[in-house]
């Protein structure tokens, strides 16, 4: 089943062109291998890998997950094989499939981020690096760099300094801040070529049988359609302030319609996360649906509508009829 494109879905992350804007959200697709049994991973814009750290990491104890209304809480704690195994095993596999790899990195210190950037500079075939400064599932909330403009900038500039000049750096932002625009500005000033938003919101659930927290880690990250309006708002605010900066929008995207909403708010790429758990083929389905959404509105090029919602509507002022809720 080929993806018959009727709209031009190409998009850009810095100088890198992607064939379409649909990516996997970090942490929801491993390094692509598991999803490749359901669809051709080269057919989507890029695979954003699960955040890799310097050393192997066991993560948090179970239970790690709790289903919530139109969403879920997770508390994985960045379990992963570490950068050595990633470079030896996961990245080559992804590249052998013809997929574009955006590698997400996470660290406990600025120096760990910088060293990971150095390792990726030496690896061939990386499309871009996403800097996960916003994982809520760490022991020390002080490690959530994305809650502080200065700490965010320190990580981004250290990564930028160590990373090969031609690899775009994307900073992944947390919605759990008072002023996301301030964090976005400091990341861009520190050298970020793009911004990725939103990471999960910190949440919690209590089991009424045991009358104790459901998650072993007590708190977890809330994802899924329940948070989509928060994502739309964050993308809108950042695009309004920084219209030239490419944004990877994510948060509860289940359909092509949801992807288009984030694009209209200002995202030039859209990542799919929790939807993959519901539908392993979600990414390719959303490429197809987005194409249909654009075509049915007579839109020829995706790039023409990135941030369109910020422009006053020519006929109706701020109201756009038939927006299809």
């Amino acid at each position, binding site marked *: 089943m080929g993806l018959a494109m009727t709209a031009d879905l190409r998009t850009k992350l810095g100088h890198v062109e992607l064939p379409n804007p649909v990516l996997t959200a970090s*942490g*929801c697709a491993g390094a692509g291998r598991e999803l490749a049994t359901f669809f051709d991973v080269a057919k989507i814009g890029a695979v954003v890998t699960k955040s890799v750290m310097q050393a*192997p990491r066991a*993560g948090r104890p179970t*239970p790690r997950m709790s289903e919530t*209304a139109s969403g879920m809480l997770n508390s*994985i704690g960045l379990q992963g094989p570490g950068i050595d195994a990633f470079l030896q*095993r996961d990245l080559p596999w992804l590249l052998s499939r013809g997929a574009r790899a955006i590698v997400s990195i996470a660290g406990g210190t600025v120096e760990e981020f910088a060293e990971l950037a150095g390792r990726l500079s030496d690896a061939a075939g990386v499309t871009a690096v996403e800097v996960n400064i916003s994982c809520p599932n760490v022991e020390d909330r002080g490690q959530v760099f994305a809650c502080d403009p200065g700490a965010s900038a320190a990580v981004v500039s250290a990564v930028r300094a160590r990373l090969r000049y031609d690899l775009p750096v994307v900073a992944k932002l947390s919605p759990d801040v008072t002023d996301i625009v301030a964090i976005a500005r400091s990341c861009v000033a520190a050298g970020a070529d793009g911004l990725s938003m939103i990471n999960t919101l910190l949440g919690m659930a209590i089991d009424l049988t045991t009358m104790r927290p459901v998650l072993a880690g007590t708190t977890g990250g809330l994802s899924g359609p329940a948070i989509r309006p928060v994502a739309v708002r964050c993308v809108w605010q950042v695009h309004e302030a920084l219209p030239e900066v490419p944004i990877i929008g994510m948060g509860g995207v289940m359909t092509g319609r949801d992807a288009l909403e984030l694009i209209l708010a200002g995202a030039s790429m859209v990542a799919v996360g929790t939807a993959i758990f519901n*539908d*392993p083929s979600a990414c390719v389905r959303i490429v197809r649906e987005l194409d249909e959404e654009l075509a049915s509105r007579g839109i020829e090029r995706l790039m023409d509508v990135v941030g369109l919602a910020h422009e006053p509507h020519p006929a109706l002022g701020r109201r756009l009829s038939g927006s299809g809720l």
Partner: protein
Amino acid sequence: MSDARNEAGSPAHVQVRGTVLTVRRVDAYYAMTVVAPGVAARFRPGQFVAVAVGGPETSMLLRRVFSIHDVRPDHGGTVEFIFATVGPGTRWLAERRTRDVLDIAGPLGRPFPLPRDPVNCLLVGGGYGSAPLFPLATRLRGRSCTVDFLIGAASADRVFGAMTARRTGRTATVTTEDGSLGGRGLVTDVLSQVIHEGRTDVIYACGPMGMLRQVTAVASRYDIPVQALVEESMACGIGVCMTCVLPVVGDDGVTRMVRSCVDGPVFRGEQVRWNDIGTIPFDALGAPGWKPRPQAKPRPAVSRPAGPSSRTPADGAGHDR
């Protein structure tokens, strides 16, 4: 709908929209049969399906996973699974009717390894954990193995498949905690006796974690290998969400937090650290404070093609697939 191909290019698993054939009440449980051709054709005992629940626009995003109880060639291939209604998702499933359509992915997970030689097999099931043991029994008998059943539950209506076990097993022992069917007590109370009488060579088990831990403990006293199918809670069933992990000791002696969906759900009982489930053991790879040993690589050298199979502990000596 996508036809799946694994790395060797052969079909691995599929995601299909399957038509419900029947939903039957079976004592305390439900048995659902769905037309799912690709799933049925690829199935091996021990594998499971992940079913989307709630219909379009649902607020329940996570798939529910169920061991496959039976596959049949009718209608191009059907699968049957057994479930209990434990929440809104399974209640929704129980309300499905003939000709409703379900989104099903499967068959998922690593199946039970089968013995090469005709040996005496004991199949131990707790609650509806006995469901995946019946297709296994058919395969084992096909290899000239003898099959004894030991199944139990809290009460008679929660024992799944007692009749089939009696009809098809060389022996079938049933226990209930309230004594309403078979002997009063737990399956593990009579396990030693059943092992002796059946001269058991290998045990296959599925049920609650506590039962699997006890079965493994008893079996290890007799040096009998256990293949345990775990029912860990999952969000995706396909290996990407990392929620269904448990501590398992690899062939290299290193404990790793492995995914029960793709590295299992079948594990060698003695390699699972049953007492440490729900924790990160301090000596697990990547546990807090864990440091790579300078003389050893953090991960064993991978001699087979890289992948989950390179660190799976499920292959038992003397077993093949």
